[in-house]
């Protein structure tokens, strides 16, 4: 019983340590690739100028 507990508990601690050291999350986010057109539009992510919000699309 003690061996089993030690192994499983250690795995839990190791998983916690690994996740937080690498910044991993256990919840899902949507992953994808933004369309080229979106990035090229005025106010798009590649043309955003640093001084702040200027109206967007």
């Amino acid at each position, binding site marked *: *019983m003690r061996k089993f507990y030690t192994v499983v508990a250690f795995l839990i601690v190791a998983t916690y340590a690994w996740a937080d050291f690498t910044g991993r999350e256990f919840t899902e986010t949507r992953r994808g690739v933004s369309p080229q057109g979106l990035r090229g539009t005025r106010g798009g992510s590649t043309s955003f100028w640093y001084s702040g919000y200027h109206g967007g699309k």
Partner: protein
Amino acid sequence: MTVTNCPSCGAQIEFAIGSSAVVVCNYCRSVVARNDRAVEDLGRVAAIVDTGSPLRVGLAGNYRKKGFRITGRTQLRHEAGGVWDEWYAAFDDGQWGWLAEAQGKFYLTFQVAANAPPYAQLQTGATVLDGFVVSELGVAELASAEGEIPWRPIPGSRYEYADLSGGASRFATIDYSEEQPIVFKGTQIDFNDLGLEGVEARRTKVAATRLNCTNCGGPLELQAPDRSERIWCPNCGAGHDISEGKLKFFAMMTTKPIEPLIPLGAKGTIDGDEYVIAGFMERSVRFDRTYFWTEYLLYNQARGFRWLVNSDDHWSFVEPVEAGDVQDGNRQGANRTIRWNGITFKLYQVAIAKVTYVLGEFYWRVEVGEPVDAADWIAPPHGMSKEITKTNAREITYSHARYLATDEVEKAFNVTKLPRPHTVGWMQPYTGGDLTKTWALMIALIFLVALVLGVTRSRRVVVDQMYTLEPVETTGEPARIFFTPPFELSGGRNLMIDLYANVDNTWVYVAGDVVNETTSATEGFDTTLERYEGVEDGEHWSEGSNSKSVYISAPAKGRYAMRIETHWDRRPGHPVLRIVAMEGVFRLSHFLAALIAVSLLALPSVLRKISFERQRWADSDFSPYRTES
């Protein structure tokens, strides 16, 4: 050397040691004392009883590089019956050593100058003479003597004495035979420490003796004829005192006979020593009801007497320990804890224990109804008992008990089908596996990981922007899309996005994408910020929240921006949305989840252990699980 004649029989006697006080005549057993002018006959002593001692008068030895010779001995009778030997060793430097022998142990003491309290002021358990515990107070009767002795023993005379235990084998005796008490201090020693060449430590075997009961004529076998004081016939229950190998009937057992689970005379090996079961007794304590248990008196020639105790079908092996070795803050009472040999024992019960039934032979004059003040402590699989006797010699004794599984007892005594226990024994070890230490270690590890994370993973704000949500179009649901300024992420760290909107009985929907400007990879999230409150039936209520956090799992190192799409309720005014993004955020939920998972996993085992311990302590007045009502 002084040679003279016995004043009683005229035989030649020798005072070989200049400082000796008396010589016992080998022929007529007269105790002959010498003074300045002549010799004096102090009276005759009985013949020496064979105690099976490996020592004898005339033996030469060497103790701590000092030579000595054993010149004589006295045999003293204990109030509870039985005799013990006191040997006298004349050392080459003129010093006398007192070598007492009892229960297979040897105690070598030397007279010291010390102020001892008067006998009447002493109490068992009291501490005197710089840390010595009074373990026994009694009166010894001079039974016999032989050889050359350094003091004047008067045949038949009685002497008050106090035995003291100093711990770590230190031993002392206060002798009240003279007007001023005489103090002897020394140590319990091993036989081999005496340096007696050619003499074996083995006691000479005093053969078991077969006698017949004076009441029923049935056979009675004495396992320790040199030590036994009383025997109760297993056939008819007749009690006899044993004196010089003869039986003297004194009483009949009137209680209902009890059959021992292991028969008298059975032999068994415990810790490598063979014991024979010499006696059997039942004892009881009274609480809400009367609790009974049985004790088997075990005898081994070299070890002396031990006990095998059976309580509720749980067994334990019991050995005496020195009072001075037990750290007990309340010798006359019962402290909640005591310590012995590095073990802390917890108080289990305090009671007056009485003998309710006896069978077989005993080294003291055991009687039914004999009471002792008893206290028991436990540290499973160990136990410690303290018994204070107030009849005959006043004595305080400590005994260490070790739990024995029923299988061990069956194997040791070659018996079968001993009843199995159905309850938890108070010294029974918990064999289910105690995870407490492992659990504590894991919890400590989780805290350590969190600490290291806190030190090495400092968080950093990468975005902190506030937007007033104004619709681009005035028709349909108000909506707006905008981008945050670009920001750099270090990689290998999480990203927390804190969203706040000043919503009040309304909502703001936020759909965001963290966009890697180099690879165009996106991590998307969406959430609604909504908060409502009001008064209903006079009660104020609220639900929802102005803020929410979302976490992005370990974005790669690079340059990013966030695309934020917002929708909100059509209400007058313009909500304000604040977005704060931080990388390397400590995840309290992960920390708590790890703590809970590790603890939940141990929970069944912990609950089992608690249940076991509650049962262990169920009959105790000192249970740590008892709730006062």
